């Protein structure tokens, strides 16, 4: 057959696929409804059946009989259980916006980027051989078609003649077009899924066509086929389970790894979980998919038997029977259809697999490992979607090139099935971490990592490593000697376990130790807070499902809405960001123009959407960068500074206010205290006044009664008593006068009766008036008065009263032994300063502030009984203050009290008022 035709047909086929895909992606709701339905979904899952199924099943059946079955029986038999797992995994993934198997595991264990990397690497190493056999299958079919020779050797050509290379390039191109046209936050590719579903139909039809052709075209139905086939030597072993050289344990092992592969192969996970649009599809898929497996396996044994019978004695590779049988019968169109079937099986697998791997590589390897989160905040980056797509495209190319290299090195040494199973076993390592992760809360990150690492290492030394040795790429004798020369570490007979199929052997040890490590380490390690909450979310997904998970906050993070939006725009694009934010605003009745800070819920919401685009670990890192640090742009900085400034000002104002308040409070407290003290003083004063009044009254009353009762008293005695009565009456009058004075002084306006007075002569006059009292008390006086007049403005009566009061006090409190007084008057600056000082005991410090208050009496008992009203100094103070002056205690030369009076000087030298009244008629006046 002309290679041009083959290429042309292939290109047309690809064109059809591409057409389907783009129609679907551009399509309206009608097409979407067709696409989003359980049948399409189930058919897309049939990407499980690859070229390996298409060609390899027949090959395995031809060599091992029913031994090919477990790979398909596994998923088919346990489909109900699988779909229970799948349902839970889908719900979790929707909830967490998980986009790959690596993301799933990493997310479950506290969004661990380590696990993301580990799973990606295992998947990558596991899948590359798998992709390589697809390349091999396509290349083989191409070569067979081209040469129309059933005995082609595809292994020995230089690469530029190698059709496998060109096929690889074509597939790369195809995968890039399909998988990385745009960046969908949910990694949904409806077009691709539909194309894959279509391919499933093509490969099924092609296989059925070949089967029918072999059974009914070459042979005369099943009866004829098996009758002729039974003449073949050793044929029984193909038809009976007992006779097949597969133990029960091996059956079980194969079923288990097949189940694991069905669920967790990155492409299966992608199609079944990520591309799933409705978890309700699962119930239909749970019977459509097994039905599909059944249909595609019906003719495996007939074709195998037919091939074996037909090609008796020829060295035809059983893996190629599907193609070579039609060719041998010269049915080129059928052969072409078969080849297309094989191509669709291979291409759907390759495209979805590399897409899934590229998502894992970009989200779990590149983003968190090589790129610092800071880059995403760089202003110049703009929209990052194109960069992400670029990363994925490069990843696709790299994966396919690696697969091609593997194919070139190893591909020809092993059958399709063997290599496929190597991949399956690698993928099966995910089982403990995932199944444990969704049903066992106690499972920890450390447990998952330990299990995966140990399982992976065992897998590597028991499967890929020996293949490398056997193919001669590595020179080693470990296959015979064991690692480090220990027979217990022979790759095919680990710990002395011999006689098992190498796949089952590897699966047994790797999974057993994986599981053991997973459980043991989980039980002995402590999960982080995030792990605990993620474990909760995963295991109890049905509980959190209704809440959408968003209300289940792990961290109370805050970020600026602007930043969040910026971030979302960079990874999701402007339009989608708008939609996402609007949705949130609508749901929570928020107006983003009015708020600047995103609460934890919104941050989580944004993270989930970002997770869709770049994976949970990367999203966590990037969100953390804005949720923690402040943005670095100048504009943002200024905004923050402004806000900070405002806050600082506000807090300063607050501080001021509170200081004021404190001050007011303390003033109030002070006032209250003073009021209380005043109250007490008042009570004391009343007692004092009462006593002071009672005392003279007592004498007056008693003596007047005596006079009344004793009319016969001698004149002198009568006179004596009368004198006392008069004096005591005066005493009462004086007391009353002072109380009235006080009232007067306080009520009177200071302007009344004011004139310009010479203070010097006023002091002199007052001293003259008190001459008698001073002589009597025998107090030494030192008087210093200026010669020129000192003019002050004031009421001379009141000022005289002040001087009298102060002088009486000084006389009273002066040292009783050798009393001394200093009286000085001078003008200093703009004040007249009068000082009256005694040499008594002075005023105790505690009383210094009190003595000018009303009702205060100095109760110094040593100085004898105070005989005042407690009003004297208070009256002085009131008068002086009304004269705009001050009265206070000054420094004294001895211990005594020095009262200082300051009065403002006045410049007008008016005549002194002559009519100064002196209140010196009361000798006993000594009010402090």
């Amino acid at each position, binding site marked *: 057959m002309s290679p041009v035709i083959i290429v042309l047909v292939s290109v047309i086929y690809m064109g059809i696929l591409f057409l389907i895909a783009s129609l679907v992606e551009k399509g309206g709701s009608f097409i979407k409804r067709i696409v989003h339905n359980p049948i399409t979904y189930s058919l897309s899952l049939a990407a499980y059946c690859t070229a390996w199924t298409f060609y390899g099943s027949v090959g395995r059946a031809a060599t091992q009989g029913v031994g090919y079955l477990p790979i398909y029986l596994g998923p088919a038999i346990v489909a109900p259980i699988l779909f229970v797992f799948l349902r839970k995994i889908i719900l979790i993934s929707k909830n967490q916006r998980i986009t790959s198997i690596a993301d799933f595991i990493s997310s479950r264990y506290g969004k661990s980027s380590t696990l993301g990397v580990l799973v990606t690497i295992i998947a990558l190493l596991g899948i590359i051989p798998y992709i390589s056999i697809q390349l091999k299958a396509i290349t083989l079919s191409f070569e067979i078609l081209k040469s129309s020779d059933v005995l082609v050797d595809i292994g020995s050509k230089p690469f530029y003649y190698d059709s496998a290379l060109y096929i690889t390039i074509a597939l790369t191109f195809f995968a890039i077009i399909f998988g990385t046209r745009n960046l969908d936050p949910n990694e949904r590719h409806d077009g691709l899924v539909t194309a894959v579903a279509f391919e499933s139909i093509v490969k099924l039809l092609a296989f059925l066509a070949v089967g029918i052709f072999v059974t009914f075209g070459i042979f005369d139905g099943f009866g004829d086929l098996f009758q002729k086939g039974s003449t073949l030597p050793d044929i029984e072993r193909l038809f009976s389970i007992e006779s097949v050289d597969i133990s029960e344990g091996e059956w079980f092992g194969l079923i288990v790894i097949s189940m694991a592969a069905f669920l967790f192969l990155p492409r299966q996970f992608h199609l079944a979980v990520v591309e799933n649009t409705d978890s309700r599809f699962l119930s239909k898929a749970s019977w459509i998919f097994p039905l599909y497996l059944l249909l595609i396996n019906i003719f495996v044994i007939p074709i195998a038997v037919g091939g074996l019978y037909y090609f008796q004695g020829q060295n035809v590779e059983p893996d190629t029977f599907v193609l070579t049988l039609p060719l041998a019968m010269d049915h080129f169109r059928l052969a072409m259809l078969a080849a297309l079937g094989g191509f669709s099986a291979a291409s759907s697998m390759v495209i979805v697999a590399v897409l899934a791997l590229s998502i894992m590589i970009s989200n779990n390897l590149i983003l968190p490992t090589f790129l610092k989160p800071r880059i995403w905040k760089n202003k110049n980056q703009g929209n990052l979607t194109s960069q992400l797509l670029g990363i994925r495209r490069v990843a696709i190319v790299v994966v396919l090139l690696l697969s091609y290299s593997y194919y070139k090195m190893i591909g020809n040494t092993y059958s399709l099935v063997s290599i496929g199973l190597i991949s399956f076993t690698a993928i099966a390592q995910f089982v403990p971490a995932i199944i444990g992760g969704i049903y066992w809360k106690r499972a920890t990150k450390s447990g998952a990592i330990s299990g995966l690492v140990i399982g992976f290492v065992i897998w590597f030394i028991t499967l890929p490593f020996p293949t490398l040795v056997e193919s001669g790429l590595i020179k080693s004798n470990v296959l015979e000697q064991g690692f480090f020369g220990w027979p217990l570490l022979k790759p095919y007979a680990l710990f002395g376990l011999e006689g098992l199929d190498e796949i089952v052997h590897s699966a047994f040890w790797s999974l057993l130790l994986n599981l053991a490590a997973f459980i043991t380490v989980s039980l002995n390690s402590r999960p982080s807070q995030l792990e605990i909450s993620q474990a909760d979310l995963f295991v109890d997904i049905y509980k959190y499902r209704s809440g959408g998970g968003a209300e289940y906050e792990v961290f109370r993070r805050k970020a600026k809405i602007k930043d969040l939006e910026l971030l979302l725009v960079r990874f999701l694009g402007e339009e989608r960001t708008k939609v996402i934010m609007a949705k949130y605003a609508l749901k929570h009745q928020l107006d983003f123009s009015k708020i600047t800070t995103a609460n934890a819920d919104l941050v989580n919401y944004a993270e989930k959407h970002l997770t869709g685009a770049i994976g949970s670990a990367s999203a966590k890192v990037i969100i953390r960068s804005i949720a923690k640090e402040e943005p670095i742009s100048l504009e943002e900085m200024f905004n923050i500074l402004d806000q900070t400034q405002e806050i600082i000002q506000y807090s300063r104002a607050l501080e001021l206010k509170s200081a004021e308040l404190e001050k007011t409070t303390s003033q109030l407290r002070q006032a209250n205290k003073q009021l209380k003290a005043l109250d007490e003083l008042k009570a004391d004063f009343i007692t004092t006044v009462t006593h002071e009044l*009672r005392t003279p009254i*007592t*004498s007056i*009353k*008693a*003596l007047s009664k005596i006079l009344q009762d004793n009319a016969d008293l001698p004149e002198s005695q009568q006179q004596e008593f009368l004198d006392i009565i008069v004096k005591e009456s005066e005493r009462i009058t004086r007391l009353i006068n002072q109380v009235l004075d006080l009232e007067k002084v306080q009520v009177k306006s200071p302007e009344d009766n004011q004139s310009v007075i010479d203070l010097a002569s006023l002091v002199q006059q007052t001293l003259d008036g008190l001459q008698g009292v001073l002589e009597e008390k025998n107090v030494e006086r030192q008087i210093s008065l200026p010669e020129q007049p000192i003019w002050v403005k004031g009421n001379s009566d009141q000022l005289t009263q002040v001087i009298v009061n102060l002088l009486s006090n000084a006389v009273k409190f002066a040292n009783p032994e050798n009393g001394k007084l200093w009286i000085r008057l001078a003008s200093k600056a703009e004040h007249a300063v009068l000082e009256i000082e005694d040499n008594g005991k002075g005023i105790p410090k505690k009383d210094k502030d009190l003595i000018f208050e009303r009702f205060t009496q100095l109760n110094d008992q*040593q100085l004898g009984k105070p005989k005042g009203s407690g009003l004297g100094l208070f009256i002085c103070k009131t008068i002086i203050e009304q004269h705009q002056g001050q009265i206070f205690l000054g420094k004294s030369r001895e211990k005594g009290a020095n009262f200082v009076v300051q009065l403002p000087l006045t410049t007008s030298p008016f005549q002194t008022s002559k009519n100064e009244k002196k209140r010196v008629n009361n000798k006993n006046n000594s009010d402090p």
Partner: protein
Amino acid sequence: MQKGTTKSRVLIVDDEPNILVALEFLLNKEGYEVLKASNGLQALEIIEKQPPRIVVLDVMMPEMDGFEVARKIREEENNQDIHIIFLTAKGTDADRFEGYANGGEVYLTKPFDNEDFITTVNEVIEFGV
């Protein structure tokens, strides 16, 4: 004791000389021998030398108030027979109580009624209260 005799000695203590004048006159007229003191210390001195039957005590006095004087009087074994009459301007119930607590037997307030005063003194002398 008979009126008119000078056997009954009364000590009057007050810092107001004019009150002492009145009290002295009233007591003399009743025939009591009157001793005078203008403060507590002086009163205690006198009591030691010439123990009276009655002490009439003012309360508000400088240096030592009447309550203290009464206490000091009662501290002495020999002074238990002395009657103490407070005569004071302090007239609250609390003051009265303090007076009795400190050994006073009668509590009179100023200003007093001459007859009441004399009657009280006589009664104290006669019945000892």
